[in-house]
Protein backbone atom coordinates (compact mmCIF):
# COMPACT_ATOMS: atom_id res chain seq x y z
CA UNK A 1 0.00 0.00 0.00
CA UNK A 2 2.86 2.34 0.51
CA UNK A 3 4.21 3.08 -2.91
CA UNK A 4 6.91 5.72 -2.94
CA UNK A 5 5.71 8.62 -5.00
CA UNK A 6 8.02 11.09 -6.66
CA UNK A 7 8.59 13.81 -4.10
CA UNK A 8 7.65 16.52 -6.54
CA UNK A 9 4.15 15.19 -7.09
CA UNK A 10 3.53 15.49 -3.36
CA UNK A 11 3.61 19.29 -3.30
CA UNK A 12 -0.19 19.54 -3.22
CA UNK A 13 -0.61 16.95 -0.51
CA UNK A 14 2.18 18.60 1.46
CA UNK A 15 0.60 22.05 1.19
CA UNK A 16 -2.59 20.59 2.66
CA UNK A 17 -0.81 18.66 5.41
CA UNK A 18 -2.01 15.47 3.79
CA UNK A 19 1.34 13.73 4.11
CA UNK A 20 1.86 11.41 6.98
CA UNK A 21 5.10 10.53 8.73
CA UNK A 22 7.71 9.29 6.35
CA UNK A 23 6.17 11.03 3.36
CA UNK A 24 6.27 14.38 5.08
CA UNK A 25 9.82 13.99 6.29
CA UNK A 26 10.90 12.83 2.85
CA UNK A 27 9.20 15.74 1.13
CA UNK A 28 10.72 18.21 3.56
CA UNK A 29 14.17 16.85 2.83
CA UNK A 30 13.44 17.31 -0.85
CA UNK A 31 12.04 20.79 -0.22
CA UNK A 32 15.22 21.89 1.49
CA UNK A 33 17.14 21.20 -1.73
CA UNK A 34 14.57 22.21 -4.32
CA UNK A 35 14.04 25.93 -4.70
CA UNK A 36 11.40 25.40 -7.35
CA UNK A 37 9.39 23.16 -5.01
CA UNK A 38 9.60 25.71 -2.23
CA UNK A 39 8.19 28.32 -4.60
CA UNK A 40 5.44 25.98 -5.68
CA UNK A 41 4.49 25.11 -2.11
CA UNK A 42 4.41 28.82 -1.23
CA UNK A 43 2.02 29.43 -4.12
CA UNK A 44 -0.17 26.52 -3.11
CA UNK A 45 -0.26 27.86 0.43
CA UNK A 46 -1.81 31.04 -0.96
CA UNK A 47 -4.58 28.85 -2.35
CA UNK A 48 -5.05 26.95 0.91
CA UNK A 49 -5.18 30.30 2.73
CA UNK A 50 -8.25 31.09 0.65
CA UNK A 51 -9.76 27.76 1.62
CA UNK A 52 -9.16 28.77 5.22
CA UNK A 53 -10.79 32.15 4.68
CA UNK A 54 -13.78 30.45 3.09
CA UNK A 55 -14.29 28.37 6.21
CA UNK A 56 -14.20 31.43 8.49
CA UNK A 57 -16.17 31.18 11.71
CA UNK A 58 -15.95 33.50 14.68
CA UNK A 59 -14.40 31.95 17.78
CA UNK A 60 -15.98 32.66 21.17
CA UNK A 61 -15.03 36.14 22.43
CA UNK A 62 -13.46 34.69 25.58
CA UNK A 63 -10.63 33.28 23.52
CA UNK A 64 -9.14 36.70 23.00
CA UNK A 65 -9.04 37.32 26.74
CA UNK A 66 -7.31 34.02 27.32
CA UNK A 67 -4.74 34.87 24.69
CA UNK A 68 -4.02 38.21 26.26
CA UNK A 69 -2.91 36.39 29.40
CA UNK A 70 -1.16 33.66 27.48
CA UNK A 71 0.93 35.95 25.29
CA UNK A 72 1.88 38.04 28.31
CA UNK A 73 3.75 35.04 29.69
CA UNK A 74 5.07 33.64 26.43
CA UNK A 75 8.52 34.59 25.34
CA UNK A 76 8.90 35.31 21.65
CA UNK A 77 11.42 33.83 19.27
CA UNK A 78 14.17 36.17 18.18
CA UNK A 79 14.44 36.71 14.43
CA UNK A 80 16.28 34.08 12.47
CA UNK A 81 19.66 35.44 11.44
CA UNK A 82 20.66 34.25 8.00
CA UNK A 83 23.82 32.20 7.96
CA UNK A 84 24.08 31.67 11.69
CA UNK A 85 23.74 28.10 12.64
CA UNK A 86 24.15 27.15 16.22
CA UNK A 87 25.43 23.72 17.03
CA UNK A 88 22.67 21.15 16.99
CA UNK A 89 21.71 19.71 20.31
CA UNK A 90 23.37 16.44 19.61
CA UNK A 91 26.28 15.09 21.44
CA UNK A 92 28.07 11.83 21.41
CA UNK A 93 26.74 10.02 24.42
CA UNK A 94 25.36 6.86 25.84
CA UNK A 95 22.45 5.25 24.10
CA UNK A 96 20.41 4.81 27.25
CA UNK A 97 18.35 7.76 28.40
CA UNK A 98 19.57 9.64 31.39
CA UNK A 99 18.43 8.44 34.78
CA UNK A 100 14.77 8.72 35.50
CA UNK A 101 12.84 8.41 38.64
CA UNK A 102 9.22 8.07 39.35
CA UNK A 103 7.01 8.62 42.31
CA UNK A 104 3.65 6.98 42.45
CA UNK A 105 1.03 8.25 44.75
CA UNK A 106 -2.48 7.07 45.42
CA UNK A 107 -3.84 10.29 46.69
CA UNK A 108 -5.06 13.02 44.41
CA UNK A 109 -2.11 15.21 45.07
CA UNK A 110 0.65 16.46 42.92
CA UNK A 111 2.95 17.40 45.74
CA UNK A 112 5.76 14.92 46.00
CA UNK A 113 6.57 13.55 49.44
CA UNK A 114 10.16 12.59 49.13
CA UNK A 115 13.01 11.98 46.88
CA UNK A 116 12.41 14.79 44.46
CA UNK A 117 14.94 17.27 43.35
CA UNK A 118 14.44 20.90 44.18
CA UNK A 119 14.05 21.63 40.52
CA UNK A 120 11.35 19.03 40.28
CA UNK A 121 9.46 20.50 43.19
CA UNK A 122 9.77 23.94 41.71
CA UNK A 123 8.41 22.65 38.42
CA UNK A 124 5.54 20.86 40.10
CA UNK A 125 4.73 23.95 42.09
CA UNK A 126 4.91 25.92 38.89
CA UNK A 127 2.35 23.66 37.26
CA UNK A 128 0.02 24.04 40.20
CA UNK A 129 0.44 27.79 40.38
CA UNK A 130 -0.13 28.03 36.68
CA UNK A 131 -3.25 25.88 36.89
CA UNK A 132 -4.63 27.88 39.79
CA UNK A 133 -3.74 31.23 38.30
CA UNK A 134 -5.37 30.40 35.02
CA UNK A 135 -8.47 28.77 36.43
CA UNK A 136 -10.70 31.54 37.75
CA UNK A 137 -11.72 33.69 34.83
CA UNK A 138 -14.97 35.38 34.05
CA UNK A 139 -15.51 32.97 31.21
CA UNK A 140 -14.44 29.92 33.19
CA UNK A 141 -11.15 28.09 32.91
CA UNK A 142 -9.62 27.58 29.50
CA UNK A 143 -9.78 24.08 28.07
CA UNK A 144 -6.09 23.78 28.72
CA UNK A 145 -6.37 24.83 32.36
CA UNK A 146 -9.26 22.41 32.78
CA UNK A 147 -7.27 19.60 31.22
CA UNK A 148 -4.28 20.30 33.45
CA UNK A 149 -6.47 20.49 36.53
CA UNK A 150 -8.09 17.20 35.54
CA UNK A 151 -4.70 15.49 35.42
CA UNK A 152 -3.50 17.00 38.69
CA UNK A 153 -6.60 15.84 40.52
CA UNK A 154 -7.07 12.47 38.81
CA UNK A 155 -7.33 9.46 41.15
CA UNK A 156 -4.39 7.74 39.48
CA UNK A 157 -2.08 10.73 39.23
CA UNK A 158 1.58 9.81 38.97
CA UNK A 159 4.56 12.06 39.02
CA UNK A 160 7.91 11.31 37.43
CA UNK A 161 11.19 13.06 36.99
CA UNK A 162 13.90 12.48 34.52
CA UNK A 163 17.06 14.16 33.44
CA UNK A 164 17.20 15.35 29.88
CA UNK A 165 20.26 14.08 28.07
CA UNK A 166 21.44 17.51 27.02
CA UNK A 167 20.76 19.11 30.39
CA UNK A 168 17.79 20.00 32.54
CA UNK A 169 15.16 18.13 34.45
CA UNK A 170 11.76 17.10 33.21
CA UNK A 171 8.74 16.60 35.40
CA UNK A 172 5.79 14.63 34.18
CA UNK A 173 2.49 14.43 35.99
CA UNK A 174 0.38 11.79 34.38
CA UNK A 175 -3.00 10.16 34.58
CA UNK A 176 -3.94 7.15 32.51
CA UNK A 177 -7.47 7.74 33.64
CA UNK A 178 -7.43 11.14 31.96
CA UNK A 179 -5.27 9.76 29.15
CA UNK A 180 -3.16 12.87 29.56
CA UNK A 181 0.04 14.11 31.01
CA UNK A 182 1.42 17.46 32.01
CA UNK A 183 5.01 18.09 31.11
CA UNK A 184 7.24 20.77 32.53
CA UNK A 185 10.98 21.17 32.66
CA UNK A 186 13.63 23.23 34.34
CA UNK A 187 17.02 24.20 33.04
CA UNK A 188 16.67 22.83 29.53
CA UNK A 189 19.56 23.67 27.30
CA UNK A 190 18.77 26.79 25.26
CA UNK A 191 18.20 26.13 21.59
CA UNK A 192 18.94 28.27 18.57
CA UNK A 193 15.86 30.06 17.30
CA UNK A 194 15.52 27.69 14.38
CA UNK A 195 14.84 24.77 16.69
CA UNK A 196 12.49 23.77 19.43
CA UNK A 197 11.87 20.88 21.74
CA UNK A 198 9.09 18.57 20.69
CA UNK A 199 7.36 15.96 22.81
CA UNK A 200 6.37 12.57 21.48
CA UNK A 201 4.15 9.77 22.55
CA UNK A 202 6.11 6.74 21.54
CA UNK A 203 3.80 3.78 21.20
CA UNK A 204 4.09 0.30 19.81
CA UNK A 205 3.11 1.72 16.42
CA UNK A 206 3.73 5.28 15.34
CA UNK A 207 5.44 8.01 17.26
CA UNK A 208 2.82 10.70 17.71
CA UNK A 209 3.76 14.35 18.11
CA UNK A 210 2.58 15.50 21.54
CA UNK A 211 3.35 19.19 21.35
CA UNK A 212 6.11 21.72 21.05
CA UNK A 213 7.63 23.11 24.20
CA UNK A 214 7.29 26.85 24.60
CA UNK A 215 10.30 29.06 25.20
CA UNK A 216 11.45 28.88 28.79
CA UNK A 217 10.56 31.63 31.18
CA UNK A 218 12.98 32.10 34.09
CA UNK A 219 14.51 28.76 33.26
CA UNK A 220 11.17 26.97 33.47
CA UNK A 221 9.53 25.40 30.45
CA UNK A 222 5.85 24.57 30.27
CA UNK A 223 3.57 23.28 31.58
CA UNK A 224 2.40 21.61 28.42
CA UNK A 225 -0.44 19.15 28.31
CA UNK A 226 -0.33 16.12 26.05
CA UNK A 227 -3.41 14.02 25.63
CA UNK A 228 -4.35 10.88 23.78
CA UNK A 229 -2.18 8.76 26.02
CA UNK A 230 -2.47 5.02 25.44
CA UNK A 231 -1.24 2.23 27.62
CA UNK A 232 2.26 1.19 26.70
CA UNK A 233 3.19 4.68 25.57
CA UNK A 234 6.49 6.24 26.39
CA UNK A 235 7.19 9.91 26.44
CA UNK A 236 9.97 11.15 24.20
CA UNK A 237 11.65 14.48 23.67
CA UNK A 238 13.65 15.60 20.65
CA UNK A 239 15.00 18.76 19.13
CA UNK A 240 13.22 19.65 15.91
CA UNK A 241 12.91 22.57 13.49
CA UNK A 242 11.05 25.48 15.09
CA UNK A 243 7.70 24.63 13.55
CA UNK A 244 7.86 21.06 14.73
CA UNK A 245 7.70 17.87 12.71
CA UNK A 246 5.34 14.95 12.39
CA UNK A 247 7.92 12.39 13.34
CA UNK A 248 11.08 12.65 15.36
CA UNK A 249 14.08 13.44 13.19
CA UNK A 250 16.75 13.60 15.85
CA UNK A 251 17.54 11.25 18.62
CA UNK A 252 15.52 11.13 21.81
CA UNK A 253 16.89 13.26 24.61
CA UNK A 254 14.54 11.60 27.03
CA UNK A 255 12.52 8.42 26.97
CA UNK A 256 10.22 7.88 29.85
CA UNK A 257 7.98 4.83 30.25
CA UNK A 258 4.56 6.02 31.32
Amino acid sequence: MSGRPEPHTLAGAYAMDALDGRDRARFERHLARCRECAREVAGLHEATARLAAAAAAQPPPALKELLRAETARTRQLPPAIAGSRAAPARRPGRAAPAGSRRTRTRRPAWVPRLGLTLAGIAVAAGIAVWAVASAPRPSGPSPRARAIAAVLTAPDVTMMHARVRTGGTATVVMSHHERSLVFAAAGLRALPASQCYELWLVGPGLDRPAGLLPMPSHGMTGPVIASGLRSGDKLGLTVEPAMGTRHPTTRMLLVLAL
Partner: protein
Amino acid sequence: MTSVETGPDRLSLPRSRGTAAPPGVDLAALLALVAKGDQAAFEAVYDRVAAPVFGTVRSVVRDPALSEEVTQEVFVEVWRAASRFDECKGSPLAWVATIAHRRAVDRVRSEQRSAERDRRAASSVIAYDDVAETVEDNLDRERVRRCLGTLTDLQREAVTLAYYGGYTYREVARLLGVPAGTVNTRMRDGLIRLRDCLGAGR
Protein backbone atom coordinates in the same frame (compact mmCIF):
# COMPACT_ATOMS: atom_id res chain seq x y z
CA MET B 1 -25.71 32.26 11.63
CA THR B 2 -23.33 34.99 12.47
CA SER B 3 -22.08 36.69 9.41
CA VAL B 4 -18.36 36.57 9.17
CA GLU B 5 -16.63 39.57 7.83
CA THR B 6 -13.16 38.26 7.54
CA GLY B 7 -12.96 37.12 3.97
CA PRO B 8 -9.93 36.97 1.76
CA ASP B 9 -10.64 40.35 0.28
CA ARG B 10 -11.02 42.09 3.56
CA LEU B 11 -7.95 41.01 5.32
CA SER B 12 -6.02 44.05 4.29
CA LEU B 13 -8.69 46.37 5.67
CA PRO B 14 -8.19 47.75 9.13
CA ARG B 15 -10.58 46.56 11.77
CA SER B 16 -8.81 47.94 14.76
CA ARG B 17 -10.84 48.63 17.84
CA GLY B 18 -8.95 51.10 19.93
CA THR B 19 -5.64 49.37 19.43
CA ALA B 20 -2.40 51.21 18.95
CA ALA B 21 -2.14 49.99 15.38
CA PRO B 22 -2.94 52.88 13.10
CA PRO B 23 -5.71 52.26 10.59
CA GLY B 24 -4.49 51.10 7.23
CA VAL B 25 -1.58 49.15 8.62
CA ASP B 26 -1.57 45.86 6.80
CA LEU B 27 -1.27 42.45 8.31
CA ALA B 28 2.41 42.07 7.43
CA ALA B 29 3.23 45.36 9.16
CA LEU B 30 1.19 44.28 12.16
CA LEU B 31 3.14 41.04 12.37
CA ALA B 32 6.35 43.04 12.35
CA LEU B 33 5.03 44.93 15.37
CA VAL B 34 3.98 41.68 17.02
CA ALA B 35 7.53 40.40 16.57
CA LYS B 36 8.62 43.31 18.73
CA GLY B 37 6.20 42.32 21.47
CA ASP B 38 3.38 44.72 20.65
CA GLN B 39 0.27 43.33 22.33
CA ALA B 40 -2.09 45.78 20.65
CA ALA B 41 -0.78 44.76 17.24
CA PHE B 42 -1.26 41.14 18.23
CA GLU B 43 -4.87 41.83 19.08
CA ALA B 44 -5.35 43.58 15.76
CA VAL B 45 -3.90 40.52 14.00
CA TYR B 46 -6.22 38.34 16.03
CA ASP B 47 -9.25 40.41 15.05
CA ARG B 48 -8.43 39.96 11.40
CA VAL B 49 -7.52 36.32 11.22
CA ALA B 50 -9.29 34.66 14.15
CA ALA B 51 -12.27 33.68 11.99
CA PRO B 52 -10.32 31.90 9.23
CA VAL B 53 -8.14 30.24 11.86
CA PHE B 54 -11.00 29.08 14.05
CA GLY B 55 -13.10 28.02 11.06
CA THR B 56 -10.29 25.98 9.60
CA VAL B 57 -9.36 24.37 12.88
CA ARG B 58 -12.98 23.52 13.60
CA SER B 59 -13.52 21.98 10.20
CA VAL B 60 -10.65 19.59 10.88
CA VAL B 61 -10.98 19.04 14.62
CA ARG B 62 -14.79 19.17 14.84
CA ASP B 63 -14.96 19.12 18.63
CA PRO B 64 -15.75 22.71 19.73
CA ALA B 65 -13.76 22.70 22.98
CA LEU B 66 -10.74 21.15 21.31
CA SER B 67 -11.06 23.59 18.42
CA GLU B 68 -10.85 26.48 20.85
CA GLU B 69 -7.82 24.98 22.48
CA VAL B 70 -6.07 24.42 19.17
CA THR B 71 -6.98 27.96 18.04
CA GLN B 72 -5.46 29.27 21.24
CA GLU B 73 -2.28 27.31 20.54
CA VAL B 74 -2.16 28.65 17.00
CA PHE B 75 -2.27 32.23 18.20
CA VAL B 76 0.32 31.63 20.88
CA GLU B 77 2.49 30.28 18.08
CA VAL B 78 1.75 33.36 15.96
CA TRP B 79 2.85 35.50 18.89
CA ARG B 80 5.89 33.40 19.57
CA ALA B 81 7.10 33.05 16.00
CA ALA B 82 6.04 36.40 14.53
CA SER B 83 9.68 37.29 13.93
CA ARG B 84 9.90 34.31 11.58
CA PHE B 85 7.21 35.57 9.27
CA ASP B 86 8.88 36.44 5.99
CA GLU B 87 6.83 38.42 3.54
CA CYS B 88 9.04 37.30 0.68
CA LYS B 89 7.93 33.73 1.26
CA GLY B 90 4.19 34.28 1.32
CA SER B 91 1.29 36.35 2.51
CA PRO B 92 0.57 36.83 6.21
CA LEU B 93 -2.73 34.99 5.89
CA ALA B 94 -1.01 32.05 4.23
CA TRP B 95 1.53 31.97 7.05
CA VAL B 96 -1.10 31.98 9.77
CA ALA B 97 -3.44 29.58 7.96
CA THR B 98 -0.57 27.15 7.41
CA ILE B 99 0.25 27.14 11.11
CA ALA B 100 -3.43 26.69 11.96
CA HIS B 101 -4.08 23.86 9.55
CA ARG B 102 -0.98 21.95 10.48
CA ARG B 103 -1.70 22.32 14.18
CA ALA B 104 -5.24 21.08 13.70
CA VAL B 105 -4.21 18.14 11.58
CA ASP B 106 -1.38 17.14 13.87
CA ARG B 107 -3.71 17.31 16.84
CA VAL B 108 -6.37 15.05 15.39
CA ARG B 109 -3.81 12.60 14.09
CA SER B 110 -2.03 12.38 17.41
CA GLU B 111 -5.25 11.92 19.31
CA GLN B 112 -7.06 9.46 17.24
CA ARG B 113 -6.72 5.81 17.80
CA SER B 114 -6.78 3.90 14.58
CA ALA B 115 -10.20 2.50 15.39
CA GLU B 116 -11.62 5.96 15.92
CA ARG B 117 -9.95 7.02 12.76
CA ASP B 118 -11.72 4.34 10.79
CA ARG B 119 -15.01 5.39 12.28
CA ARG B 120 -14.29 8.96 11.32
CA ALA B 121 -13.46 7.87 7.80
CA ALA B 122 -16.81 6.12 7.61
CA SER B 123 -18.61 9.35 8.43
CA SER B 124 -16.58 11.47 6.07
CA VAL B 125 -19.44 12.01 3.68
CA ILE B 126 -21.22 13.96 6.37
CA ALA B 127 -18.15 16.02 7.06
CA TYR B 128 -17.86 16.85 3.40
CA ASP B 129 -21.48 17.97 3.18
CA ASP B 130 -21.07 20.16 6.24
CA VAL B 131 -18.11 21.85 4.70
CA ALA B 132 -19.86 22.39 1.42
CA GLU B 133 -22.67 24.02 3.34
CA THR B 134 -20.32 26.19 5.31
CA VAL B 135 -18.66 27.34 2.15
CA GLU B 136 -21.97 28.17 0.57
CA ASP B 137 -23.68 30.05 3.34
CA ASN B 138 -21.92 33.34 2.91
CA LEU B 139 -21.58 35.51 -0.15
CA ASP B 140 -17.97 36.27 0.71
CA ARG B 141 -17.22 32.66 0.09
CA GLU B 142 -18.79 32.66 -3.32
CA ARG B 143 -15.49 33.06 -5.06
CA VAL B 144 -13.87 30.07 -3.43
CA ARG B 145 -16.98 28.04 -4.05
CA ARG B 146 -17.03 29.06 -7.67
CA CYS B 147 -13.37 28.20 -8.11
CA LEU B 148 -13.85 24.85 -6.40
CA GLY B 149 -16.54 24.34 -9.01
CA THR B 150 -13.99 24.63 -11.81
CA LEU B 151 -12.13 21.61 -10.50
CA THR B 152 -12.88 18.09 -11.68
CA ASP B 153 -14.94 16.08 -9.21
CA LEU B 154 -11.93 14.06 -8.17
CA GLN B 155 -9.75 17.13 -7.72
CA ARG B 156 -12.41 18.87 -5.69
CA GLU B 157 -13.11 15.89 -3.47
CA ALA B 158 -9.42 15.27 -2.93
CA VAL B 159 -8.77 18.91 -2.01
CA THR B 160 -11.82 19.21 0.23
CA LEU B 161 -11.25 15.98 2.10
CA ALA B 162 -7.60 16.78 2.65
CA TYR B 163 -8.00 20.40 3.64
CA TYR B 164 -11.30 20.52 5.47
CA GLY B 165 -11.32 16.90 6.58
CA GLY B 166 -7.66 16.72 7.58
CA TYR B 167 -7.14 13.37 5.90
CA THR B 168 -3.85 12.16 4.49
CA TYR B 169 -3.71 11.53 0.78
CA ARG B 170 -3.58 7.80 1.43
CA GLU B 171 -6.77 8.07 3.47
CA VAL B 172 -8.37 10.19 0.79
CA ALA B 173 -7.38 7.55 -1.76
CA ARG B 174 -9.09 4.88 0.28
CA LEU B 175 -12.19 7.01 0.80
CA LEU B 176 -12.49 7.72 -2.89
CA GLY B 177 -11.43 4.26 -3.98
CA VAL B 178 -8.66 5.46 -6.28
CA PRO B 179 -4.91 4.81 -6.22
CA ALA B 180 -2.85 6.99 -3.87
CA GLY B 181 -0.67 8.17 -6.74
CA THR B 182 -3.72 9.44 -8.58
CA VAL B 183 -4.90 11.29 -5.50
CA ASN B 184 -1.69 13.13 -4.92
CA THR B 185 -1.45 14.32 -8.49
CA ARG B 186 -5.11 15.41 -8.35
CA MET B 187 -4.45 17.30 -5.15
CA ARG B 188 -1.60 19.14 -6.74
CA ASP B 189 -3.43 19.84 -10.01
CA GLY B 190 -6.55 20.86 -8.10
CA LEU B 191 -4.67 23.28 -5.86
CA ILE B 192 -2.83 24.78 -8.80
CA ARG B 193 -6.11 25.31 -10.61
CA LEU B 194 -7.64 26.79 -7.48
CA ARG B 195 -4.68 29.09 -7.01
CA ASP B 196 -4.91 30.34 -10.58
CA CYS B 197 -8.67 30.75 -10.42
CA LEU B 198 -8.41 32.76 -7.20
CA GLY B 199 -5.55 34.83 -8.51
CA ALA B 200 -3.66 33.78 -5.43
CA GLY B 201 -0.54 32.73 -7.30
CA ARG B 202 2.73 34.38 -6.67
